[in-house]
């Protein structure tokens, strides 16, 4: 029974896998009576050479080779079609000898190059991050997405660097328009050197003044897998440990991979906290200017007097104070980012503690301002995707400018304007402000 299916399986598999760039078929033996089929990104080619290819020419008869193959501990006799495809996607090699088929274990175990995710650290859940090797990265995804519908298209970008770029998508679930658009945009990129995903993201974005990212750049394979299953397109770049995901909507940037792992109530709570953090980090500086200089009547008298009291020694207007401290905060963040790990904490201590404490005691800034600046910074760090974090950092200055000119009206107006702007953005033709994730397209999947 196994024999018959082994042969049919080989033909079926090659038909099923046609179009996969990393699918390889080899014929061995004097008259091609041995067939090998495997996914090169998942298998160890050294093993295949040593245990299959070389012995096949050394064996006296076909039968002996078959017995030899069957004797390996991990080898399984090929059975149903579904089993074959499952094993091949795991990294097994389908060996068809005559009419029978065997699945030979040649799984490539890449442990060395895979590091932990640093930029998108999470508490529980998978810790792997992409490496700098595209083969390995595809391996990481394939291992998590064991489906024959995962398709990979390879392209080359960069006249000089000749960087290979892989477009990954689920053939059944992907949005064809997005895929077509993505391919077109990547093909149209005319540059000499491409080194990072962020760079490519910049080149394939529509050209206009842009402040919000419309594509996620991530280093987590599990996020990529999750998004591919949602019907999105992922782009991997050789020599860079980041992937681009498109189309991405606003709420995607506020989703951490933790949310899926947590109890639903906790997950919602965490998501709510992120949006509250977003609101705080955007509005606190501008509201401070408003309350301290335009509309103190909104606050309770106690707080008004508190602000007034702590500002009594400050010589310059409120917005100077705000800008000064916000800029200090930005310098601090940037400095601790670029410094070597050993000096980093020192910079934060010197900057945060000493500067903040001394500035209030010297009467240069008010106490409340220090609290406010740290609240702004902390709530900014809540945003899980750092690209969005940077954007929000810039936008709060714009809002503060409006607050300086128009007071409370400016704050309200700029929030309204921001929402209008966000509603106008499209990511690969998808509305950006759609506040829930794309619907899963399951044509026949589940």
């Amino acid at each position: 029974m196994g024999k018959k299916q082994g042969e049919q399986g080989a033909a079926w598999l090659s038909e099923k896998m046609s179009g996969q760039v990393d699918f390889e078929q080899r014929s061995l033996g004097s008259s091609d009576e041995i067939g090998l089929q495997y996914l090169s990104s998942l298998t160890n080619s050294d093993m295949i050479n040593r245990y299959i290819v070389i012995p096949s020419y050394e064996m006296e008869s076909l039968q002996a080779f078959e017995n030899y193959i069957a004797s390996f501990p991990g080898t399984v006799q090929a059975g149903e079609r579904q089993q074959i495809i499952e094993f091949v996607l795991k990294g097994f090699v389908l060996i068809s000898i005559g009419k029978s088929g065997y699945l030979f274990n040649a799984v490539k175990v890449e442990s060395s190059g895979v590091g932990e995710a640093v930029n998108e650290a999470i508490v529980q859940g998978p810790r792997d991050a992409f490496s700098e090797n595209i083969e390995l990265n595809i391996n990481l995804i394939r291992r998590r997405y064991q489906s024959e519908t995962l398709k990979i298209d390879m392209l080359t970008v960069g006249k000089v660097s000749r960087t290979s770029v892989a477009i990954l998508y689920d053939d059944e679930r992907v949005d064809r328009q997005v895929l077509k658009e993505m391919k077109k945009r990547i093909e149209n990129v005319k540059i000499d050197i491409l080194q990072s995903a962020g760079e490519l993201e910049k080149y394939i974005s529509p050209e206009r003044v842009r402040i919000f990212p419309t594509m996620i750049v991530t280093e987590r394979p599990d996020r990529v897998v999750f998004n591919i299953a949602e019907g999105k397109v992922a782009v991997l770049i050789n020599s860079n440990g980041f992937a681009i995901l498109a189309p991405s909507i606003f709420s995607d940037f506020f989703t951490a991979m933790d949310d899926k792992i947590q109890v639903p109530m906790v997950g919602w709570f965490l998501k709510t906290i992120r949006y509250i953090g977003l609101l705080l980090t955007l509005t606190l500086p501008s509201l401070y200017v408003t309350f301290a200089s335009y509309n103190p009547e909104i606050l309770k008298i106690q707080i008004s007097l508190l602000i007034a009291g702590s500002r009594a020694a400050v010589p310059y207007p409120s917005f100077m104070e705000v800008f000064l401290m916000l800029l200090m905060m930005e310098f601090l963040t940037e400095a601790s980012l670029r410094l070597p790990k050993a000096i980093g904490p020192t910079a934060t201590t010197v900057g945060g503690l000493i500067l903040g404490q001394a500035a209030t005691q010297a009467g240069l800034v008010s106490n409340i301002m220090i609290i406010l600046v740290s609240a702004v910074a902390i709530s900014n760090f809540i945003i899980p995707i750092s690209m969005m974090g940077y954007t929000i950092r810039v936008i709060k200055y714009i809002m503060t400018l409006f607050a300086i000119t128009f007071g409370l009206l400016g704050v309200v107006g700029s929030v309204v304007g921001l929402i209008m702007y966000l509603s106008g953005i499209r990511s690969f033709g998808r509305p950006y402000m759609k506040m829930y994730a794309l619907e899963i397209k399951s044509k026949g999947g589940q």
Partner: protein
Amino acid sequence: MKKIICCLLAIAMPWTISGCQFKDIDKRSFVLAIGIDRPEDKDKKNQFEVTLKMAIPEGDPTKRSQEPVVITEIAESVPEAVRLAKSKTDKELDFSHCKAMIYGESLARDNIIPLVDWSSRRRDIQLIMFVAVGQPTAREVVKMQTKSERLPGNALILGLGKEGTESPYIKSAYSFDLSRRTTEHGLDPFMPVVRTKHPDMLIIDRVALFNKQKLVTILSPDETRMLNLLTSNHLRSSFKVDAEGNSFDYNLENSKAKYRIKADKEKKAIVEYHLSGKASLEENMKGTPVTGPVLRAISKAASEKWERDSVKLFKKIQASGVDPFGWGLRYYSRNWNNSTERQDWERLFPGLEFQVKADLKVKYTGMIR
């Protein structure tokens, strides 16, 4: 490019005209309470004496109570006095946190209309400001620095509102309500009366009733409590009642007052009040056992006492010719004919009859012996 320049210009241009509005919080001195009197000086009888209590923020906000600054200024009109007061401080006067306005008794007995108009017309004085009558003068009340207050004027604000103490003898009045009551037909203003008690106490336990423009009568504390019971729901207070040869105190937990006006064509009208409430027994003077029948007797005696007291209050208010309950407004709304309802009510008012039905239920709270 042209677009961007236009946008930038549009943003930059208002910058130049925003100048005066932008005043930092530490350059303002917040007026927390205003008191307005007639000057004691006989020659200046028709002028106004304006007292402003201000909080000047300084230094460490965690320290106890900043010293208030009190400025008194006499002028022909209130705006004029405020303008004069401005030149006495180094910071811009800011009325946006003014939460209490005290009318001196002498002024209240004369005419409050121009001041009500001024305070509701000024943009920066909020309409949620409390208003009150000050005895002996508004200046005394505003100047009073009670021991418990951390912020200047806070004791006055907490006392007049419901945020701090919730006394049944305090009938708080807001500025917006006052200005409405000065213009609405069939609804007359009232204000709580704040008295000073030296050295450092403010007493608020009476209410002053106004006809449209001046103070007519001041109710006693008990009458004030009754007025509170009749005009607001969920009054919390304790009352004393004699029943079964014993004296009991009960604590009112919930109350409700409804009324309707039964008007006979042209002849007479009856105001029918229905009071209900739930109370629990708080003190039992002689310590006799409280049983079901005793409780029912207490409830009956308490209800009857309410009926007597309220009718007495109604008669007093009717005699003084004012209408703080808004009976007139209620009558117009139910009997309008677009021409004669106001005259009808004026004719009916002196002969109004009152029927009060009180239904108070006194409970006995459990006790472990």
